[in-house]
């Protein structure tokens, strides 16, 4: 493989990794705070993609001609509305089951996943929805004779936006009272409540943050692939979940790293091997990691004194 193909796949993998990382954060945060896998999270991402699409159509109908302004508006709208969905899912399907056995909210999550898919299918139709390319152009770097590296503007935007969001988000979790309350709830919910933390509200905020990050991923998917349908949440969700487990479920840097690893595998696999086996490779790596590092790449079990 020549250096230009290598660099090109690196850029593509980084873009994919940004997607998966953003979605994986939602899985890992929810797991961290209430110990359940939110199987409806992939569908929250799908809802985010649809809201983005509707937003673009709406704003262009309203005469917003500038593409950057449109993207910024849609970003805000998608994050807000998707957050409402994420909040509602927790409120309706998970909170009433809190304190019951672990399996109950899991089944409820699968139920919510089906509900969201069918809701979008019914209201938006089952056909694939296209969006004309909005962000065009990019940078072309010449690496030698006949060797070029193409970075589209959209790829740069996706990576930049993801890095900015992840940095801001890490700051919130590490340094603010809200982040401390979240971590405290995660580690000892009863004690957090004794100190005055409204545990229910903290959990709601976790779902809201997770859903709005998924909305950004949904917006990016809409722009990047140009087509969406009601079923995109399933595969993206499973892959992002894999990323979260790969990185160590419950670990935020782990989710980002896991996303990156999955993105890289997906972009490099077809260079060497048959594209048809790409997903097999992704899940194969998951199996290997779980065999040799059961708690994931960064999910080191802490040694604590009791």
């Amino acid at each position, binding site marked *: 493989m020549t250096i230009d193909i290598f660099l090109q796949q690196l850029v593509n993998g980084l873009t994919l990794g940004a997607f998966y990382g953003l979605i994986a954060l939602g899985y890992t945060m929810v797991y961290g705070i209430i110990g359940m896998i939110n199987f409806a999270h992939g569908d929250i991402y799908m809802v985010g993609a649809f809201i983005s699409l509707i937003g673009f159509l709406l704003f262009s109908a309203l005469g917003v001609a500038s593409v950057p302004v449109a993207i910024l508006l849609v970003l805000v709208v998608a994050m807000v509305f998707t957050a409402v969905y994420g909040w509602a899912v927790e409120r309706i399907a998970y909170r009433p089951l809190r304190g019951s056995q672990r399996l109950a909210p899991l089944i409820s999550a699968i139920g919510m996943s089906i509900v969201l898919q069918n809701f979008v299918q019914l209201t938006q139709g089952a056909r694939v929805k296209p969006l004309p390319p909005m962000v065009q152009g990019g940078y072309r770097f010449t690496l030698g004779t006949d060797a070029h590296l193409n970075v589209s503007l959209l790829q740069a935007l996706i990576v930049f936006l993801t890095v900015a969001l992840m940095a801001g988000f890490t700051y919130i979790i590490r340094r603010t009272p809200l982040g*401390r309350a979240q971590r405290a709830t995660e*580690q000892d919910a*009863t004690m957090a409540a*004794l*100190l*005055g933390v409204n545990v229910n509200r903290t959990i709601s905020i976790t779902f809201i943050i997770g859903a709005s990050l998924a909305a950004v991923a949904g917006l990016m998917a809409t722009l990047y692939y140009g087509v969406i349908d009601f079923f995109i949440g399933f595969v993206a969700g499973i892959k992002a979940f894999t990323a979260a487990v790969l990185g160590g479920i419950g670990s935020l840097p782990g989710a980002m790293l896991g996303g990156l690893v999955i993105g890289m595998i997906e972009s490099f696999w077809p260079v060497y091997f048959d594209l048809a086996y790409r997903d097999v490779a992704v899940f194969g790596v998951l199996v290997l990691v779980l065999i040799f590092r059961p708690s994931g790449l960064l999910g080191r079990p*802490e040694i*604590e*004194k009791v």
Partner: protein
Amino acid sequence: MLKVRGLHSGYGRIEALHGVDVDVEAGEIMTVVGANGAGKTTLLMTVCGHPRAWSGEVLFEGRDITGLPMFEIGRLGIAHVPEGRHIFPRMTVLENLQMGGYAVDPRHFDADLQRVLAYFPQLGNRLSQRGGTLSGGEQQMLAIGRALISRPRMLLLDEPSLGLAPLVVRQLFDIIADINRDERMTVFLIEQNAFQALRLAHRACIMVNGRITTRGTGAELLADPAVQAAYLEGAAPSAEEAP
């Protein structure tokens, strides 16, 4: 300051408190001693709303707090140092203390931190260390420090001596006495270590099987032969009175 009236509470269908009445007066150290499983921890936790009271009432500064959610009770000026300390293990000592100030105006934090470190200078060297890596005694200090940062008017202490070396227990109880004296802090102390607790307490009562059986001043109970026999090992044994 705290009035508990006819409190019934328990877990699932098992009742652990069968009508408990306790008063804690402002500025005093009140202690409840009793054996394992007598319901002491349940009493303290029910005051904080977890588990909820089945019947009876809890009044704090004249206000009925029986039905309030746990986090609101935590914001009223009641600081709970639970059994087993419940330090956040993967947060640093400083972050644990910051959690104590969660419901307090952050402008107070620096002064409050200095106040806590004056009582527990050991914690000062460990601020950036994770809570889970502290020794048992240090964790207990951190738990009390975290409670103090919340600027409480009443401190609930559940078995602070649990699992600590006798010397550390002595030290800790001296500090509790200091806090009570210096800050006029009301302290509601639950202990199995009856000798240390009664020595410290202004008033005390004994809990047996979910009921308060004996009340008096700390000194009175310390001198009571029945109490000595049952709870104070080695002091005036009289076998037939032991439960």
